[in-house]
C-alpha cells in the first residue's frame, strides 16, 4: 500500500482548559479528497492551523510524505507542498491580482528576489487558469466579488505549487452559480495537477460530489469516518451535527 501523503496521529490541542482537539488520527492518500465536517467549534479550522504550524499542537504528530514536520515553520511547510485557504479570504489588499500571485511565486533567495524579474506571463497563466480575465488580473481585491476572492485564494495557492491543499469554508458567502464554478475549478485542478484536498465546509450539498471520504468532528473528537452517504446517515453524526 502506498505511503499516505499526510498522516495525523493522536493530535491534541488545548487552549487553557478548553480541549479543541482530542486525539485526532487520520491519513490522506495522494490524489484523495477528504471532507472535514462538524458543527461550529468542532475543531476543523484548528486542524488546519496545526497542519500549517499556525498553532502548536499540545501533543501528537503530523507527518508529510513520511517525514515528521513538527520542526518546520509555516513557510517551510508550504515549500514542502502544503498550502491553505482561509474562511475569510486574506488577499494583499493594496496589490493587484497579478501582484498577489507574484508574492506567492516568490523565492526565499534574497538575491534572486532582487535580481530576478517577475514572470508576468506565468502570473497571467495562473490567473487565467482560475478564471480571471486579463482585465481582472490588473485590479485590486476591493473590486472583486466574494467568488472572485475565492478564485484569487486558489490562484495564490496554485502559485506555491502545492501537493496538498487545505480549503477552509471554500464555499462560504458564494452564490449557487459561484459554488458551481469553484467546484468545477477544484475538480479541474485535481485532474490536471494531481492535487490532494482536505475541504472544510458547512455546505454539505456542495461538498458531497467532491469528496472521496469524510471525517466528522464534534467537540474536538473524531466521531465518524466514511463515505459521504455513510457519515450523513450515521446516528451519532445526525445527533451531533444536525441536532436530530
Amino acid at each position, binding site marked *: 500500500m502506498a505511503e499516505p501523503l499526510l498522516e495525523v496521529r493522536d493530535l491534541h490541542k488545548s487552549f487553557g482548559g478548553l480541549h479543541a482537539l482530542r486525539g485526532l488520527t487520520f491519513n490522506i492518500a495522494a490524489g484523495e479528497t477528504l471532507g472535514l465536517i462538524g458543527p461550529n467549534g468542532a475543531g476543523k479550522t484548528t486542524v488546519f492551523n496545526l497542519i500549517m504550524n499556525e498553532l502548536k499542537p499540545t501533543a501528537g504528530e503530523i507527518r508529510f510524505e513520511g517525514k515528521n514536520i513538527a520542526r518546520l*515553520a509555516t*513557510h517551510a511547510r*508550504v515549500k514542502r507542498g502544503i498550502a491553505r485557504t482561509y474562511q475569510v479570504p486574506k488577499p494583499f489588499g493594496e*496589490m493587484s491580482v497579478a501582484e498577489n500571485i507574484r*508574492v*506567492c511565486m516568490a523565492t526565499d533567495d534574497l538575491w534572486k*528576489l*532582487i535580481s530576478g524579474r517577475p514572470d508576468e506571463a506565468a502570473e497571467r497563466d495562473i490567473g487565467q487558469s482560475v478564471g480571471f480575465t486579463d482585465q481582472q488580473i490588473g485590479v485590486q481585491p476591493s473590486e472583486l466579488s466574494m467568488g472572485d476572492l475565492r478564485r484569487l485564494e486558489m490562484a*495564490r495557492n496554485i502559485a*506555491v505549487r502545492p501537493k496538498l491543499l487545505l480549503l477552509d469554508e471554500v464555499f462560504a458567502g458564494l452564490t449557487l452559480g459561484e459554488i458551481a464554478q469553484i467546484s468545477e475549478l477544484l475538480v479541474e485542478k485535481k485532474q490536471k495537477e494531481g492535487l490532494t484536498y482536505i475541504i472544510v465546509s458547512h455546505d454539505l450539498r456542495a461538498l458531497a460530489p467532491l469528496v472521496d471520504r469524510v471525517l466528522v468532528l464534534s467537540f474536538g473528537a473524531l466521531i465518524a469516518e466514511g463515505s459521504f452517504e455513510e457519515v450523513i446517515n450515521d446516528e451519532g453524526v445526525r445527533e451531533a451535527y444536525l441536532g436530530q
Partner: protein
Amino acid sequence: MDKTTLKLLGGWLLFGVIMCLLPLVVSTGTLRILIFAHFLAIFAMSWDILSGRTGYISFGHPFLIGIAGYTTAILSFRYGVPIYFSIPAAVAATMVGGTLFFVPALRIRGTYFALVTLAFMEILYQMTKVVAPKVTGGTRGISGIETIVTGAVPNYYLTFAAMFVIGLLLWLLVRTRIGIALSAIQMDEEAVKSAGLNTTKLKLFAFMVSAAVAGIGGAFYVHYLGSIAPRGIFEINFLFTILIAALIGGAGTIVGPIIGAYFLTMLLEFLRPVLPGMERYFLYGIVALVVYVYQPNGIHSLLASARRHLSVGKS
C-alpha cells in the same frame, strides 16, 4: 528594467541635474538649509524602508543614528582613527545595533514594537550620559570632530550625492520583487508565511538596510556638524521630524520621504522669521496634520494623481 522604471529614472536624472545646478543660483544660507534637508531625507528613507514598507513602526530610529554618530565621533576624535575607517566602522556598528533592534520584531509588532524601539532610544540616551562619560562626553557630548569637507558648497554636494545615491538605490530596490514581498508583510504577515516566504529573513534584510542607511546618515551628520550631544540626537522633536517627513511625503515610496524632507525643512525655515522659538514645531505639526488628513498617502500621492490628471488631459 521595465519601461516605466526607465521613464522614472529620467525623473531622477532631471532631479539630479537641477540639484547640481542649484548652488549656482541660490545663496549659501539656502544651501546650508538644503544640507539639513538631505540629512533628514536620508534618515526618513532609512525609516521608510523599515517602517513604511514592512509596517514595523520604529520610534527609535535615533538609536541607530546615535550608534553611528557616537562610534565615528569616539573613534576619530578620541582615538585618532581616520574618518575613512571610522565611518565604515560606524555603519557596521549600526548594523549590529540594527540586529538588536530586530530581535523584538520576532515576537511583537504594532504599538508594542514601536514602544520597545522607543525604549532602545531612551536606553542609549541615558547610556551616553552616564556610561563612560569621559569617552562619550556625557551630557555635553563631543565637539571639535573632524569634518569631511568644509564650506557650504562642498557639503551641499557631498550630502546631496549621499542622499541621491541612497535614494536611487533604495528606490530601485523596492521596485524589485523584494519590495513587493516587504509590502506584503505590512498588509498581512501571516499570509506571507502562507505564501511560503520566510518573513524573518525578509524583515532582517529590511532592518539591516535601514540600519546601514541610518548609519551612513548618522556618521556623515556628525562629521558635518563637527559635534555630537545626546540632547541633539535623542531629542523627541528629532524623532518626530523624521517620522513626519516620511509620512507627509508618502510612506513606503522612498521618493515620498525625500519630498517630505525638503517640504518640512523649507517649511521650518520659512516659519523661522515669524516663529523663532519652539512654537514653530506646533505650527508645522498642524500643517503636517492637515496634509496627512487630506491625503494620508502623502505629497507623493498628490503629485502622482496630478501627473495622472495631466496625462489624461493631454490624451
